[in-house]
């Protein structure tokens, strides 16, 4: 039994090794631009954890990553790569904005869930074509989803700039240019922030923090996904197909049907990714709406080893890194994008570490099993 714990520890080791390696590389990069790495890291930590607003901002920053990480992980577990979370969440966000500003007079408890549902469906819709092409025509979903990402960019651009642009923005004539954005979303569709709730516990979040209820929603979703994957018949089939489609087929499971369902589910979750920003921070969708949650979601899924708990932790880690980067830029003069390199290095290290570690563990387990008598 003790051996098992040893192996579990080894499996956990790969993300830790990846982080350590990335920290090292980061230190080299920081030194290369003439700053003291230890000092920079210290600033990063104190900035992120010593301030209340930072903690709130970290959680806010982690929220979309939880969703996109879960979306990617579900597809990975079924043996597919959903690189299209980028496009799926943009489409979902836009449709949510549409439902948010186009529908008026609805009470909050109807409007908000409706908007969320619309976002999810938008994401699922955008994931339908790639999985269909994969299952029926063998088109690799990596390329097809990436193409749809670019198509989504153009489509959203058109919809925001040319079709739904808010022309009634209250501006003084002659001063400034109108923002290229959709009309503002009705208040009934906005997601309240957590300030009131946290105040009950004596926690007073500053006004400029936008931590909202999508964060706990994300945590709940992570729990739900955990149960889905490990405790439902569908999750069982999903994992079976992801591991060994031949055995799944022999057991009477239909691999194609399972993969389609898994990918659509992935799209559903992806669609909701942008809502924390949309419904709590911006209140409208403009051309500068944050992009990149999709790719970072891939990183989060890999770091979290496609496990909901790991994904939450990895999302928090990235939230920390992003916040820390802001502090480091302001107080230490190190460009924020150091963090992006850190993230990139982390991803590479984790996939290598996982592969190597995984093989080593497997070989050890095998040796033991063969050594033991029946």
């Amino acid at each position: 039994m003790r051996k098992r714990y040893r192996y579990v520890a080894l499996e956990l080791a790969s993300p830790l090794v990846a982080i350590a390696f990335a920290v090292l590389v980061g230190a080299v990069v920081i030194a290369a631009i003439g700053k003291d790495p230890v000092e920079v890291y210290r600033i990063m930590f104190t900035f992120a954890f010593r301030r209340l607003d930072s903690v709130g901002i970290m959680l806010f920053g982690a929220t979309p990553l939880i969703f996109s990480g879960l979306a990617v992980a579900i597809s990975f577990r079924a043996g597919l790569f959903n690189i299209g979370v980028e496009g799926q969440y943009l489409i979902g966000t836009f449709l949510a904005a549409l439902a948010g500003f186009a529908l008026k007079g609805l009470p909050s408890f109807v409007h908000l869930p409706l908007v969320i549902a619309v976002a999810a469906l938008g994401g699922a819709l955008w994931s339908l074509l790639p999985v269909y092409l994969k299952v029926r025509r063998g088109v690799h979903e990596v390329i097809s989803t990436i193409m749809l990402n670019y198509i989504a960019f153009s489509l959203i651009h058109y919809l925001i700039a040319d079709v739904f642009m808010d022309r009634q923005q209250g501006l003084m004539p002659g001063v400034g240019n109108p923002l290229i954005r959709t009309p503002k979303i009705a208040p009934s569709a906005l997601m309240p922030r957590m300030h009131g709730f946290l105040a009950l516990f004596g926690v007073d979040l500053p006004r400029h923090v936008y931590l909202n209820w999508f964060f706990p929603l994300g945590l709940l979703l992570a729990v739900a996904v955990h149960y889905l994957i490990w405790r439902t018949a569908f999750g069982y089939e999903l994992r079976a197909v992801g591991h060994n489609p031949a055995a799944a087929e022999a057991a009477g499971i239909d691999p194609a049907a399972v993969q389609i369902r898994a990918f659509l589910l992935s799209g559903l979750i992806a669609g909701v990714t942008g809502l924390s920003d949309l419904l709590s921070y911006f209140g409208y969708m403009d051309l500068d709406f944050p992009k990149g949650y999709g790719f970072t979601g891939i990183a989060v899924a890999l770091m979290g080893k496609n496990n909901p708990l790991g994904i939450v932790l990895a999302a928090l880690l990235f939230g920390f890194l992003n916040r820390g980067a802001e502090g480091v830029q302001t107080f230490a003069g190190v460009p924020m994008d150091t963090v992006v390199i850190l993230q990139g290095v982390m991803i590479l290290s984790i996939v290598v570490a996982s592969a190597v570690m995984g093989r080593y563990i497997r070989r050890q387990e095998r040796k033991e099993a063969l050594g033991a008598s029946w």
Partner: protein
Amino acid sequence: MAFLELREVTKRFPGVVANDHISLEIDRGEIRALVGENGAGKSTLMKVLSGLYQPDAGEIRLDGRRVVIDSPRRAIELGIGMVHQHFMLIPRFTVLENIVLGSEPARGGVLREREARRVVGELCRRYEFALDLGARVEDLSVGAQQRVEILKVLYRGAEILILDEPTAVLAPQEVRELFVNLRHLRDQGKTIIFISHKLDEVLEIADRISVLRRGVLVGTVRREETDRAALARMMVGRPVLLELEKGPYRPGEDRLVVEDLTVPGPGGRPAVRRVSLRVRAGEIYGIAGIEGNGQSELVEALSGLRRASAGRILIGGVPVTEGRVRRIRELGLAHVPEDRQRRGLILAMTVWENGVLGLHRSPSFARRGWLQVGAIKKHAQSLVREFDIRLPGLDIPVRNVSGGNQQKLILARELGREPTVIVASQPTRGLDIGATEFVRQQLLRARDRGRAVLLVSADLEEVLSLSDRVGVMYGGELVAEFRPGEVTPEEIGHYMLGGRSRTAGAGPARDGAPGGAGRGEAGSASPGTDGAAGAD
């Protein structure tokens, strides 16, 4: 003095001695055939000779000198060329490219195509091989592809050629052509080792024949001094009906009926040709035969993994020929697959998860989509207990479980479903004695409980001891059907190697049967009417 000498060559694998102190002498310019059943040790011995395996004991001498063959490259340097059973060719490359790859005539990195063509063309002429050097290998007939493989080793200067089951995939005319080529090669001084289980062919081409059985060399005879019957006897031995507890034979109604089934195999050619059989409740029907004669495809068709192109399959009277796996399983068919790690288990998942693979949606294990983990674990627990599977726990990934326990788990799972029909394919392959005994006992117990069992096995002893009725498959057809004990081992061997039978459904006439001699001779030995031949 012999050209190639093996002295006491021994090779062991965990649990089995594949080659047991084998000593052989082969002369230069001889065609030596090496025969034996599956698992006799022929392939292993040849892998030792060609540098893929290292012997645990014994030595090899070439032209009187001791040699150590520690890699395939070393073997080639010594002039030993292996022509694999599964061709190592690049389908999209031309014949010429395949032959010269790795030892290309070149100048400054540029291929000298004309030079290559000249050299290889010369080889073709010398050994009288007819080949279009510019053709793509994937467009060639199997016989031609084989010639390419042979040329590969000749191009690299092989003096000893090892051919592993070369006629397994050839049509009769192609076999003719191959033999012509082999004789040429021999006449030019090459030494040929020819592995096969097809006795007719071996008797035609070989100068001498060595027989292996269960890792041991039974003997070497000259072609003139022997015949099919003698070889079959050496190869098959006297199967001992194992002491197993078997209930009385009281077959019930038909549970599995196969009518005129034809199933396509690789390359579109039919792997199963118009096979008809029926398995009744409370009986074990065994399919004997050397692997590769359509058994796998038959099993795949029965379990729904492969589509039949003609014929019918009925399970409990219900036709399922265009059946999907799920439906077939729902009708009560359980499948113990021959490739257990690929089809039978999900290695990355735990023992208890594998315990319900295929049953995970049944009411006791999933309610409204939710897995009843408690019930599933309990189920796994009882499987493990009943089938005596020794494990440290249920939570370990099944890939860390021994082969024997893996098979026990599959068996436990499938038998635990109370199926009406059980299709078990090579169920004891690779298992140690204990696990093997266990598996066999379980199959018998299922049969005694009224199940219909279809057993496919390359182990003849196993088939004969367990089955109530036996069918022999050869070339995709069911060529004989009898009850164990009705037929002599020689006859069985004869059927397994292509002889015609008196009882099985006659299939289409075989074209170009190589030499009527062998067949006719055995044919005349069996009685013309139905009735038990004198056992043994």
